[in-house]
């Protein structure tokens, strides 16, 4: 009897330790994504548009996670995301089509390039803050966009660049969307775990300290220079990797995609979801991009009037920002909390109904 109780306790503790593990939710999310893909492979009729919507959303989640480190943790506003993602797409596009570089080398080059770009922008950010930084990065993004339009040798200009395939070990392989979806889901899991590690580590705390009070951060030995650079480098690496995945999944990149609207959408996704929570960012990205791609595009009315879907999306953003300034995740958290307290109350009442109150 005593032994059985002990075994039960141990089993429960083990189960709880798995359930409460910080990565548990990420794994579930990834498995859900993979389930959609496998359902299609196994012959269940999942519309290709929905599958594409999920794939794209995962790419946007990766980009938004980098942005959340920048905005939610370091407190730096940037509108240059679109330009950086564009650079990522053209790196893989040009290198595969013209040079036939292996994908692994491309990933390495992308990361190195991202570190260089991030360091440059980070260096700029040391002197400029707030709105001005946003405007400067916006200008940078516009410059990059003009480069995309005019450097036709690398980007094929306004006609857009097609990706021929992916080179793995000197062999050009036709793009298999299903395989890339799986790789993308696993990569998203990886990025989520890394981002959580950053957020919970001394680095994340240092970034938050810097955002809250620069003088306190400096007094505690946190170098503003180092951590601003770091935040920008992380955000840029994520954005460029997102670009590489975008190109390999969609295999088409055109300068008009990488305009201000894209940057603003990423910003909106991070703010609407909740800039400091990974689940919040997943939610926000689904709302800004996924909802449009997966739900609204399925309804005939919105397909006929694409402008209305944008209005609908905008209205949603306004409502969320007015009523839930902490982001959707705050709404979710408060509702969960309220529900839990309600359930507790209900259980208590139920107990009183069945057993009578304790005082009797």
């Amino acid at each position: 009897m005593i032994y059985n109780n002990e075994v039960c306790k141990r089993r429960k503790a083990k189960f709880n330790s798995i359930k409460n593990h910080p990565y548990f939710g990420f794994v579930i999310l990834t498995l859900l994504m993979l389930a959609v893909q496998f359902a299609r492979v196994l012959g269940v009729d999942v519309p290709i548009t929905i599958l594409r919507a999920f794939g794209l959303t995962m790419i946007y989640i990766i980009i938004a996670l980098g942005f959340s480190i920048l905005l939610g943790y370091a407190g730096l506003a940037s509108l240059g995301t679109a330009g950086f993602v564009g650079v990522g797409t053209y790196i893989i596009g040009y290198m595969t089509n013209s040079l036939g570089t292996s994908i692994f080398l491309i990933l390495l080059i992308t990361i190195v390039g991202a570190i260089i770009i991030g360091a440059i922008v980070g260096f700029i950010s040391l002197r400029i803050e707030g709105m001005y930084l946003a405007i400067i990065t916006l200008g940078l993004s516009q410059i990059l966009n003009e480069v995309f339009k005019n450097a036709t040798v690398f980007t094929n200009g306004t006609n857009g660049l097609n990706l021929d395939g992916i080179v793995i070990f000197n062999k050009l392989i036709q793009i298999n969307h299903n395989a890339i979806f799986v790789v993308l889901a696993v990569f998203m899991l990886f990025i989520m775990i890394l981002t959580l590690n950053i957020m919970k580590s001394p680095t994340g705390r240092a970034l938050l300290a810097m955002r809250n009070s620069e003088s306190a951060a400096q007094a505690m030995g946190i170098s503003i220079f180092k951590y601003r650079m770091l935040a920008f480098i992380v955000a840029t690496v994520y954005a460029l990797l997102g670009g590489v995945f975008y190109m390999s999944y969609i295999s088409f990149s055109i300068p008009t995609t990488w305009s201000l609207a894209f940057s603003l959408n990423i910003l909106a996704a991070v703010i609407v979801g909740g800039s400091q929570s990974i689940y919040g960012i997943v939610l926000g990205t689904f709302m800004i991009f996924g909802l449009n791609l997966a739900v609204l595009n399925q309804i005939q009315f919105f397909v006929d009037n694409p402008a209305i879907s944008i209005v609908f999306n905008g209205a949603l953003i306004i409502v969320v920002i007015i009523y839930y300034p902490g982001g959707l995740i705050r709404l979710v958290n408060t509702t969960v909390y309220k529900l839990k307290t309600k359930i507790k109350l209900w259980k208590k009442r139920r107990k009183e109904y069945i057993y009578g109150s304790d005082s009797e």
Partner: protein
Amino acid sequence: MVPILSNIKAFLYSRQIKKIQTNLEFNKNYLPIKVNYYEDQLKQKSEFLDLKIKHKLLPYEIKAGVSSEFLKQTYELQLQKIEEKYYWKKRALKQIIKRKNIDEKISLDKLNKDKNNELDDIKRKYYINTPNKGAELFYNNQAKILQDKYGSKITKIDTKYNDLIRSLKMKVENRINNYQTRYEVYKTKLANLNISSKFSLDEGVLLKVDNLSMHFGGLKAVDKLTFEVKKGEVFGLIGPNGAGKTTVFNCITRFYKPTDGHIYFQNKLNEVVHLNDIVVHNVIREGIVRTFQNVEMIWELNILENLLIAAHTTYRSGFFGHLFNSRLLRQEEVVIRKKAEKILRDLDLIQYTYAYPFGLPYGILKKIELARTLMVNPKLIILDEPAAGLNEAETRVLEDTIRKIRKEYDTTIFLVEHDMGLVMNICDTVCAISFGQKLAIGTPKEIQSSKIVQEAYLGGE
């Protein structure tokens, strides 16, 4: 050429020594924590296996008529459970009777009958036979078999954990010895360079402000100020509003670059550094920590994490360690968390460990700022108006806390304060300044009776 080279060498050596110091501290703190953890695990596992043996022996025990403590416990637990179950059932029944017109007596009788049946079942199950030689032999045999089966497991676990503990101890002690020898080596190397004679302080002096001037345009906030802070004392800097007290602080902690003058400080390695050459975020590494006039909390982190932020310079793991949640980082987090908890307990803040600073009383926030300064074993704590905005009672608590810190953490405290009661109570030396110039320096009594100070505060004539 040669002096430059030796300067570079000295810089590298002192950096190495600082690193070794943090390593040493980490290893010394880490060892007992990990050993404790292993011992806990060992205890839990062996107890569980013991329990398993006892549990498996139960039926044989009953048959053999050997009644052990464990059997009694199990039996009583069973009875207790049934009692509890029927207690609730009875309450539920009473409620039903209240609502519907059911015959009370019949249903209660039925319930009691059920209960007695179940109790009888348990009693039958645990009925201990009269001692029986054959069954006892069988029991002993079984006990032996089980002991063999699980006893070997227990010894295995025992040896495993003991080996782990021993190897860990050896490893860490080796490491500590290694670091200690390296520490000595670097120290002698540094001493052989013979460049520490560059700056010097008198015996027992920790901080020296020499001819410090700070001009904001035409305004002379601090004008040729000179004073010394001795080791282990509580030094107070007082003066009317706008006298330049906070400016002095900001110059010492490098938030401002002084127009003229020098600040010397004897750092953690007992070498004299010229603070003017140090970047603002490296001041803490030399052993100077400060608080702020209006509390500068990190509002988005809880109190424990606020303390961890203060220990930022003591982390040895780098960005990639943080990115991949490396083993070193996890070990460090455990050690530093333990330290933070100890400090919180010392200052009676342990109940706020996981609270967020938003909405806490101002006195508590001030105390948390004090706790934050202790995370890096500072040599000098600089307090910028610790009693500002506190009421009488809170000020008294703060006074006690400052005394306690000075006694237990072996530091020097340098404070700016308007509350004369606090200054006169806790300070050993007080320096009075006005319009950036020194008026008087001495013991609190001397300052109190000084005519110049009285004039500055109350106005002359």
